[in-house]
């Protein structure tokens, strides 16, 4: 944005008599980068982006936990350089021939640097070996299609074979419509794999981040031994607008928030993003068999 534009509205109002004479003047070249400031969508507080990023993308005023990318999540969660990615080269097909789906995939791959909406792999956290999966809302709202389902299933299977704890950072709009009923089946597939992991007595921590909804809430995200949520994030089965449409009234603001789920008994704890690494490390340590 050009600094001069900021005042153009006012100027034109004052100078309306002088017609277009001003516009002929060359504009100043002062450019403000787009991402200099962050404005919180919840409380409208404005902070410098640097400061905001240093705080783990949490609004200093209202504690809003902004959505972060899978890579950013790994950076603040696991030991530096410990991530060994699984199935790096898996991409989806277009099983139901959905119009525009392959193009959208190509576009998003370039934009996000991801091949689909989840990263899975092996890592350490305070030196302890874990399997980790991190979903990314920037890739088709983290929706679960074949690739997400398969990668998560394989991650669970790897953890089962190697008797490792698994941490899943969930964020998803639900099952991916563009792959039809096959996406729906990923719910059963991931749940089956999570169940097998549970049967060998290993720990599964599910961390629900903004937003965890639909087919992901109704599958592996909800079956963790321990379920952690970030403050104020959206967690639910049906979309807010769908419910409002069904019951024809406005829902209270805290409906489907992490706090709402805690109150109703569906999450174990709400943990600030800056304390999640510490919390997970402690919980894993508690489960180490002697």
């Amino acid at each position, binding site marked *: 944005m050009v600094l001069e534009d900021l005042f153009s509205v006012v100027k034109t109002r004052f100078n309306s008599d002088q017609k277009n004479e001003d516009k002929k003047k060359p504009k100043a070249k002062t450019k403000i980068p787009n991402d200099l400031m962050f404005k919180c969508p919840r409380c409208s507080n404005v902070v410098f982006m640097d400061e905001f990023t240093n705080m783990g993308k949490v609004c200093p005023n209202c504690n809003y936990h902004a959505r972060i990318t899978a890579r950013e999540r790994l950076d603040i969660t696991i030991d530096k350089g410990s991530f060994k990615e699984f*199935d790096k*080269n*898996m*991409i*989806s*097909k277009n*099983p*139901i*021939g*959905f*119009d525009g789906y392959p193009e959208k995939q190509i576009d998003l791959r370039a934009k996000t640097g991801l091949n689909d909406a989840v990263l899975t792999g092996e890592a350490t956290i305070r030196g302890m070996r874990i399997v980790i999966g991190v979903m990314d809302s920037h890739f088709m709202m983290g929706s679960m299609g*074949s*690739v997400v*389902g*398969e990668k998560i*299933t394989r991650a669970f299977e790897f953890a089962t074979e190697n008797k490792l704890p698994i941490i899943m950072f969930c964020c998803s709009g639900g*099952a*991916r*419509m563009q*792959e*039809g*009923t*096959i*996406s*729906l*089946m*990923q*719910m*059963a*597939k991931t*749940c*089956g*794999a*999570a*169940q*097998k992991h*549970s*049967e060998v007595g290993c720990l599964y921590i599910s961390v629900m981040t903004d937003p965890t909804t*639909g*087919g992901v*809430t*109704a*599958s*592996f*995200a*909800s*079956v963790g031994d321990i379920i952690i949520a970030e403050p104020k994030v959206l967690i*639910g*089965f*049906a*979309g807010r607008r*769908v*419910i409002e449409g*069904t*019951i024809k009234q406005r*829902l209270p603001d805290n*409906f*489907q928030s992490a706090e709402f789920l805690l109150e*109703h008994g*569906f999450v174990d704890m709400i943990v600030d993003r800056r304390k999640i690494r510490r919390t997970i490390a402690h919980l894993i340590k508690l489960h180490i068999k002697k």
Partner: protein
Amino acid sequence: MNNLSACQRLDIIRNKNRPTVRDYIPLLFNDFFEMHGDRYYGDDGAVIGGIGYFGDIPVTVLSTVKGRNLDENKQSNFGMPHPEGYRKALRLAKQAEKFHRPVICLVDTSGAFCGIEAEERGQGEAIAKNLTEFMILKTPIITVILGEGGSGGALGLAVCDELAMLENAIYSVISPRGCASILWKDASREREACEVLRITSEDLTEFGICDYTIEEAIGGAHNDVEQTAEHISEFISGALERNLQKGLDELLNQRYTKFRKMGEFQEF
């Protein structure tokens, strides 16, 4: 065999005379006793569960039920279960496991209910729990989709050893209406969306999701309930025979593998 398009089938399954679970249960099972409640919260009218004989085999029946008229629909919430419905189904499935009864699931729902109470009582958790528990249930599970197989709401009763669909039934990740409103911001274009989503039994057979297609009476099940029920009965009878002879490990491994295989992706 069936040349109808997806949206023509949608018309058939939405026909007001389409038989419901209440019509089929007396035709398929003898000495049926309905069981109520999830033992935690309440009894969901959208899910019927009970025990009875299929031929001479005692079975547990779990089903979502749509009403045939407004009164019935009020009671059954138009076939859209709350969490307690899924929990009732799970309770009865566990009971079936205990007494070594096979489980027959009959599904006809547009989806799990979307409402305040459903969210408060954990709709997502209830379905997720069913998916994990049905995957390891130590008794055969046979599912038949009678009409609408609506997303997670149907899947909650469809983790099974064999899945059959009536020839006009659909099984979808999202209602065609929902798909249209997301795709084109216009819910009235559901007929178009219906074709896009590939939700007929032929499509799903191709994807390895549907194992059998059950023939309906000519023109649709409403034209001859008895005949359609007979076809369903033939399928269940065969499916029970195939699955009851399996050892427990074999049964559970095959069930896991059935779902494990589903997915279309490529690796380079």
